[in-house]
């Protein structure tokens, strides 16, 4: 049985060269489906990777209970003081999170840039923060440091340049990295200066806290919720960013799978047509093999294997194309959770490539099965006449 399958399949594969045109329809069609699917999902993956890499397991965010983002949250100074003295909290950073309209480099149209005010604790609490050019901002001065993604996406954030926000003038003194996280799409400055410039004296919108034990996050949150002086909620950064990315990822995933599904229907018909043609052009050959005593099962397998080979070729082609075109491509999108632009790189991960190949195989199975069964059911005497 296996030698039959092997020989017939080898023969079919050798024959592909003579049907290069019709065979390439399958390859290109499936490559297109895989490229679109993987390309779109690589966007969601890249976006989620940015949010995921923004979090540390022992770091949490505290906001007003009932709010779903830093922008709409605010903490009273008393609340922050109580919070920072709570058992299990090693360090707390009160921060002011505001949005500034800055033109994007590529389009020139203004987009929301996160402007975060913080004290030294804000830097200490983020060990991933690293100045890669220039220096840190100095307390009390209108200086800011820009994340590398923000500097790449927004105009006027070069070191040494000056920029106006809300009737105040700021000087960019450094660029920083934060292990590829969402912070790299923000600009940071001294809390007191930001409060003054944005006319929100004494205001903080959220607190970042360093936990002594990440496992205690839930317990600390329960204590916060139980304290009548506090109307706050604590979430680990992992929870916070997961919920931030959820909507966007769901949207991209829905769109990605939707478009890929529509294209897949087209690709299946292309594969069906090609494989039916392949079978019909080999009607006599198939009939000869069956006359000689070859069974229907090896024929079904051989046609299926040919379809799957072409499908896998298509899957690999689609994966390679999308990897070369999109992997690492930087884009930015509005994070609906924070109303700010988050820059991210498309990430064509091995998981996405495996998903693409899986889709290609499924399309190959569907496209090959019916022609394969037809090949096995051809009446020999009719097929020998080429009918």
């Amino acid at each position, binding site marked *: 049985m296996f*030698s*039959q399958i092997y*020989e017939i399949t080898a*023969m079919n594969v*050798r*024959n592909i060269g*003579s049907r290069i045109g019709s065979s390439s329809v399958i390859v290109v069609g499936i490559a297109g489906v895989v490229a679109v699917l993987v390309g779109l999902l690589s966007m969601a993956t890249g976006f989620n990777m940015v949010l995921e890499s923004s979090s540390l397991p022992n770091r949490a965010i505290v906001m007003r209970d009932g709010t779903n983002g830093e922008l709409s949250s605010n903490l009273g100074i008393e609340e922050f003081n109580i919070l920072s003295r709570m058992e299990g909290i090693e360090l707390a950073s009160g921060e002011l999170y505001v949005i500034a309209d800055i033109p994007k480099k590529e389009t020139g149209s203004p987009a929301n840039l996160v402007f975060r005010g913080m004290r030294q604790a804000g830097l200490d609490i983020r060990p991933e923060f690293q100045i890669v050019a220039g220096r840190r901002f100095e307390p009390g001065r209108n200086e800011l440091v820009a994340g590398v993604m923000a500097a790449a996406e927004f105009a006027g954030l070069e070191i040494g340049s000056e920029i106006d926000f809300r009737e105040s003038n700021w000087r960019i003194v450094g660029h920083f990295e934060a292990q590829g996280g969402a912070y790299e799409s923000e600009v940071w400055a001294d809390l007191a200066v930001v409060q003054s410039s944005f006319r929100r004296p004494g205001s903080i919108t959220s607190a970042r806290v360093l936990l002594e034990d990440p496992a205690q996050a839930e317990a600390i949150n329960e204590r916060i919720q139980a304290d009548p002086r506090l109307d706050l909620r604590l979430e680990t950064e992992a929870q916070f960013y997961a919920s931030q990315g959820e909507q966007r990822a769901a949207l991209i995933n829905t769109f990605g799978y939707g478009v890929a599904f529509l294209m897949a229907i087209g690709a299946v018909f292309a594969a069906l047509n090609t494989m039916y043609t392949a079978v019909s052009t080999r009607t*006599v*050959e198939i009939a*000869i*093999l*069956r*006359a*000689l*005593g*070859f*069974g*229907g099962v090896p024929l079904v397998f051989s046609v299926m294997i040919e379809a799957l080979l072409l499908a896998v070729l298509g899957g690999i082609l689609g994966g390679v194309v999308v990897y070369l075109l999109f992997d690492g491509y930087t884009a930015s999108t509005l994070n609906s959770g924070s109303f700010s632009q988050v820059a991210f790189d498309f990430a064509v991960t091995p998981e996405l490539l495996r998903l693409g190949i899986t889709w290609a195989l499924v399309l190959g199975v569907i496209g090959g099965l019916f022609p394969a069964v037809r090949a096995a059911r051809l*009446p*020999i*005497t009719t097929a*020998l006449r080429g009918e």
Partner: protein
Amino acid sequence: MAIVECRDVEKQFVKGRETVEVLTGINLDIEEGDFLALMGPSGSGKTTLLNLIGGLDHPTSGLIRVGGSDLNELSGRALAKWRSVHVGFIFQFYNLLPVLNAQRNVELPLLLTNLSRAQRQKNAAIALEIVGLTDRAKHKPGELSGGQQQRVAIARAIVADPKLLVCDEPTGDLDRETADEILGLLEILNRDHRKTVIVVTHDPKAAGHAKKILHMDKGKLVEEAIV
């Protein structure tokens, strides 16, 4: 001893609402070692009868026993296995697989056996030697003449050493001289290798190589002649 027995064989084809009687009341015995020519006009049922004897199709009614096996009782898979062991097919248009060379074409029926690759190659080489094509073993069908292709087809038909060779217009696509060579080869296989040969042909000269000629008309056997 009869290697082929046909008893009251009928074959009908249904085309749309119409039923066409192709074979009617065929009763026939073919002795082992015979060389039989089936002649008759187009549509007389020669090829249909040949296909039934070769196990490529089932009769609508009646009995066909070949080499002691009742073909009606064999399932599709069993019939395929039976064909691979008992029958060699030779067609008008050779029906070789164009992507395989002569050696690999001849080896094809042996893929259905348990022979090792080396033994398959050896047997195929012997079959090619019998038909005089040893030096063309590595040539693909497209690189061979019509007569050479038919020789390869004959080698393929005999490589598994079946007792019965069924030949459907084996010289129909060949010139006279080449046709005579092919028919001479079939004679050798019949005489020296004890193969029972059944040839369907329109050509009286081709039929002249047979020991016995059967004439068919309108689905019936009408005449028998001993050559």
